[in-house]
């Protein structure tokens, strides 16, 4: 029966910007303070306090707008959105309704049937709310304003998506762009990226839009996909039963895989927007806009084209490396130093990815310097350390960003390939393992491997395996 219907989806995506301070006051945006310690009169709505706009918020918002093909509104203003809720200290949120900073942009996503353009209706700047903690013991709620006033941009798409796959492709692309710009880390789980899904269904081929609902509380791509499918089925079922879809906001419960309406008599949804009298308009001059444009980093599409020309690495590697700006930055910086892009790529694609996965870390948490990776590649290339020592050193670089030259020196990890130092060990191994020597002599090639292993073990891994191999052969 679902074949007769098509789904129409638009997204409202909130992204917390990566500023040091809040949008309208100098309080820190850092996570993890004790409740209400990152607050001041402004972000707790004390009487008489006034907002002053953080310049960096405008720059990030405009940067995201430019990267998504938006027209920048060079005279934008703030408005008050009035509603009562305890996490909203002033009982109005400072946002933008009438003159948002960006309009009419788009993002191109890959779909099985080719590239699809998803329109962006607008991007506006606003302040985040505080956090409500529900106290089970006393059956009350507790308000913490540490997050209150953290800058957000809300990216409102056109209703151009028709499936969970498209929604996720759109979100992934959006996230990649914003992370590239450094405007946010866009983590769904931690709430620095949040998506509300507006969804309606209509008979296939119909031009008219159906009644839509808005789904909130979606904390992962999986939850988003499940919520979209659940809501689509719910609406189709209603229509099939001859009932109406009610325009409402619904809250998704991912544990129950079901949603419920968030309605209350006290919730009029009449926000009485009006221009914020405490803030003055933001005029973005052509020069300012040009400066922001000039400061934009190279985005992934351009990077992929350049990598093809500049670096001799497989397309697959380039795809993976450019999927995170952090990886791409490390790759480019380390390659520039050691001039061995393939080796850099190998370290990133291999050990780095493995360790990230093992430690459940994200690429933007990588903290080692490209210089140290380049040094490591040099040490390996020059035969100063062997492959297995290199892996051990890399782990230290990954964890603590140690200087590999110093580390190798301090821990005496240099490969021993000077024959004098090896000779004694080789001769001892030969003397201790007459059976293996005899086996080799009688044509059992494998026996040599055992002898090499014994020598390496005795040398604590620091010997050059090739040198050991050669010396053993000479002596047998």
């Amino acid at each position, binding site marked *: 029966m679902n074949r007769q219907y098509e789904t129409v989806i638009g997204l409202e995506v909130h992204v917390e910007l990566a500023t040091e301070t809040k949008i309208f006051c*100098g309080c820190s945006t850092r996570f993890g303070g004790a409740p209400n310690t990152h*607050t001041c009169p402004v972000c707790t709505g004390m009487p008489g306090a006034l907002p002053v706009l953080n310049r960096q918020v405008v720059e990030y918002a405009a940067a995201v707008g430019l990267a998504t093909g938006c027209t920048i509104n060079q005279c934008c203003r703030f408005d008050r959105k009035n509603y009562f809720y*305890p996490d909203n200290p002033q009982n109005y949120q400072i946002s933008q309704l009438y003159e948002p900073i960006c309009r009419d942009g788009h993002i191109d996503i890959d779909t099985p049937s080719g590239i699809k353009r998803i329109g962006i209706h607008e991007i506006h700047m606003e302040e985040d709310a505080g956090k409500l903690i529900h106290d089970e013991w006393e059956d009350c709620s507790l308000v913490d304003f540490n997050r209150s006033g953290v800058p957000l941009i809300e990216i409102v798409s056109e209703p151009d998506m028709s499936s969970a796959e498209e929604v996720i492709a759109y979100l992934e692309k959006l996230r990649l762009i914003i992370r590239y710009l450094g405007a946010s880390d866009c983590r769904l789980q931690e709430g620095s990226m949040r998506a509300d899904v507006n969804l309606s269904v209509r008979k296939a081929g119909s031009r008219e839009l159906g009644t839509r609902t808005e789904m909130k509380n979606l904390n992962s791509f999986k939850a988003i996909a499940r919520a979209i499918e659940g809501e689509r089925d719910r609406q189709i079922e209603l229509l099939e039963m001859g009932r109406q879809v009610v325009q409402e906001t619904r809250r998704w419960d991912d544990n129950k895989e079901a949603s419920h309406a968030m309605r209350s008599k006290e919730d009029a949804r009449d926000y009485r927007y009006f221009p914020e009298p405490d803030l003055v308009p933001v005029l973005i001059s052509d020069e300012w806009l040009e400066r922001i444009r000039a400061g934009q980093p190279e985005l992934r599409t351009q990077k992929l084209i350049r990598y093809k020309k500049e670096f001799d690495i497989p397309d697959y590697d380039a795809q993976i490396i450019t999927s995170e700006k952090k990886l791409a930055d490390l790759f480019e910086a380390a390659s520039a130093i050691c001039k061995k892009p393939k080796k850099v790529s190998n370290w990133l694609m291999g050990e780095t990815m493995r360790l990230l996965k093992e430690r459940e870390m994200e690429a933007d948490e990588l903290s080692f310097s490209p210089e140290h990776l380049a040094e490591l590649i040099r040490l390996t290339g020059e035969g100063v350390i062997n492959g297995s020592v290199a892996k051990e050193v890399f782990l230290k670089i990954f964890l603590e960003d140690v200087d590999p030259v110093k580390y190798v020196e301090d821990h005496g990890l240099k490969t021993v390939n000077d024959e004098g130092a090896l000779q004694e060990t080789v001769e001892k191994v030969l003397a201790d393992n007459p059976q293996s020597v005899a086996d080799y002599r009688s044509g059992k090639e494998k026996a040599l491997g055992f002898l090499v292993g014994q020598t390496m073990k005795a040398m604590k891994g620091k010997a050059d395996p090739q040198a050991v191999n050669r010396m053993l052969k000479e002596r047998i």
Partner: protein
Amino acid sequence: MAHVISDETIEYVGILAKLELSEEEKAQAKKDMGNMLDYMDMLNDLDTEGVEPLFHVYPLSNVFREDVVENGDERDRMLANAPEEKEGAFKVPKTVE
């Protein structure tokens, strides 16, 4: 044109403004609001075609702060004003069912 404010309107505005009026206050509010709106209708006589609304008395723009942390810790003094607090947070009636 005389404005007649209905009970529903007073109820609705009460929800928006979070005010709960007594029956007597409601009757008074209906009368006052009606009178005020009648009076405000005077503005309809004024031709404002093509006039830009004046949001700010003069054209200030681009007033910014730089992105530098400067918060102190006034939590305890701030919480001293709270009707109820618990563990450094403001205590309110339960917000979810």
